[in-house]
């Protein structure tokens, strides 16, 4: 078995008395899509925030590419190759779609200290940004104001910005949410191919997408991983069915 790219060791996080993460140990291996599922409030976004560095765990460690990154900032983890998408879109709403993608490319270039030439005329950045937008299917909306995008298109733009970073691992928080069945299918197809570029830790409520995509699934309930396994194993798991999947699985 190959070494995992991303690994959490017994991550625990309290919000007051609430244990939002309870000794979570998961890993992400090269070439795979590892889906995290669980009911609302299970602690999925909290887990992602700790992996990406915007929230410090109360205890436990995060390891990325064999290195302990628990003490590193969000910025440092991004530069090390973590590409995150947000559950609630964090985009520059007043700017164009292209400018948002360009920001990702600019961050990846590490050269923001240029004050004179127009960013939109930087052909290297622009190529990278347009390429990412085309891959998620936003090529016709590049010059729109981001605030004018539909909810689903914003989700696509989130993914596009992560693509411009050319990360070593993707961490995506509900990229399908609000996408509608057509958009959801499209993005499913896209993520399917993306795992070859970099593995994906995928938090998702859309079970069709999860069952179609995931190599492994971890189920989070009340901050605790109650099961990890292949799609078939998770589907067959009695505890998971009781806690989450219910009768429709």
């Amino acid at each position, binding site marked *: 078995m190959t070494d995992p790219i991303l690994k959490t060791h017994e991550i625990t996080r309290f919000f007051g008395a609430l244990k939002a993460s309870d000794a979570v140990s998961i890993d992400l291996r090269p070439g795979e899509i590892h889906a995290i599922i669980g009911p609302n409030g299970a602690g999925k976004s909290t887990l992602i925030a700790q992996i990406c560095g*915007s929230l410090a765990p109360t205890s436990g460690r995060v390891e990325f590419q064999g290195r302990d990154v628990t003490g590193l900032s969000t910025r440092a983890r991004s530069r090390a190759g973590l590409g995150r998408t947000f559950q609630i879109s964090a985009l520059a709403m007043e700017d164009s779609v292209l400018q948002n993608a360009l920001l990702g490319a600019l961050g990846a270039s590490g050269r923001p200290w240029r004050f004179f030439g127009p960013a939109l005329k930087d052909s290297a950045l622009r190529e990278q940004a347009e390429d990412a937008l085309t891959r998620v299917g936003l090529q016709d909306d590049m010059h729109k104001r981001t605030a004018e995008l539909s909810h689903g298109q914003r989700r696509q733009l989130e993914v596009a910005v992560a693509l411009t970073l050319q990360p070593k691992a993707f961490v995506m928080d509900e990229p399908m949410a609000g996408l509608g069945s057509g958009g959801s299918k499209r993005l499913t197809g896209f993520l399917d191919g993306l795992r070859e570029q970099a593995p994906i830790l995928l938090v998702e409520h859309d079970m069709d997408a999860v069952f179609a995509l995931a190599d492994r699934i971890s189920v989070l309930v009340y901050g605790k991983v109650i099961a990890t396994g292949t799609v078939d194993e998770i589907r067959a798991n009695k505890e998971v069915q009781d806690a989450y999947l219910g009768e429709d699985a």
Partner: protein
Amino acid sequence: MIRETHLNLGIIALLIAIPAWALMADEPFIITLMTRAVVFALAAVGLNIALGLGGLVSLGHAVFFGIGGYAMGILAHHAQTYTPLTEWPFLLEGTKSMPVIWLTAIVASTFAALVIGILSLRTAGVYFIMITLAFGQMFFFFAISWSAYGGEDGLSIYVRNGFPGLNTLVPVQYFGLCLVILLAALFLNARLAKSPFGLALNAARQTPARVETVGLDPTRLKLVAFVISGAITGLAGALFADLNRFVSPTMFSWQLSGEIMIFVIIGGVGRLFGPVVGALVFVALEHLLGGLSEYWHIYLGILLLLIVLFGRGGIIGMLCGRERLHD
């Protein structure tokens, strides 16, 4: 709706036409008023970079305006009294040369903006406003107590400082000099807004979490914006002191910080020519209403209230609508 570029060109035309008319009609006071407006506009262009692009609500920009003013006052004072600033560790003399004074003003306000920025950017929101305000008060009271340079009374400079090739005592020549500097600052501001730095700063204002996620440091971006902003306002302070041939602690006052912010808000926060429109309107009101009533600020207050309540983009926003996207 008017195209914003057309409006901007119209404003530039106005900045040239009014003094040209005043020159022919032999109205030097109008030229002086226009110079005042242009210098205020420059100060507000500085603030607009921090406020409009960076979202930094600084109520302490009079610090930089005052530093620029005192850079002029101190250097010219030593030159006119033939006393050195210091003899140790090396002899440092005063000067009546504008370029040297400007450079001093820019360097000093850059340094001040760096220190104040580093300390203030540890906070956000109301605390940021309060801490910048507090720095303003600190400098204000320091200037009052600095008796070597006139304390509360300030410093008078008898003859306006010189610029190679110009007679700065002729109002229209000094106006031209200030206008060129303003236009240069606006040009740099326009380039800055579209540059990679501007793109990142714009995003840092709207969504700092995103900026961090792409590996950039939003606080550092804002700090650099604050420093550039302070340097421009500092230069405006030197020009303002030279216009009046006088500098006093009021240049550091919080009222002045407030006025600089009012210029930006009236004209349109984040709009390239917002500071220019705001300063022109302010100086016009000050001149026209100030003659009628001592309490003309009441009318200014009403105007400000209307703009904040009904026209979020200031006058430029009302005339031109939302800002066009860069392409």
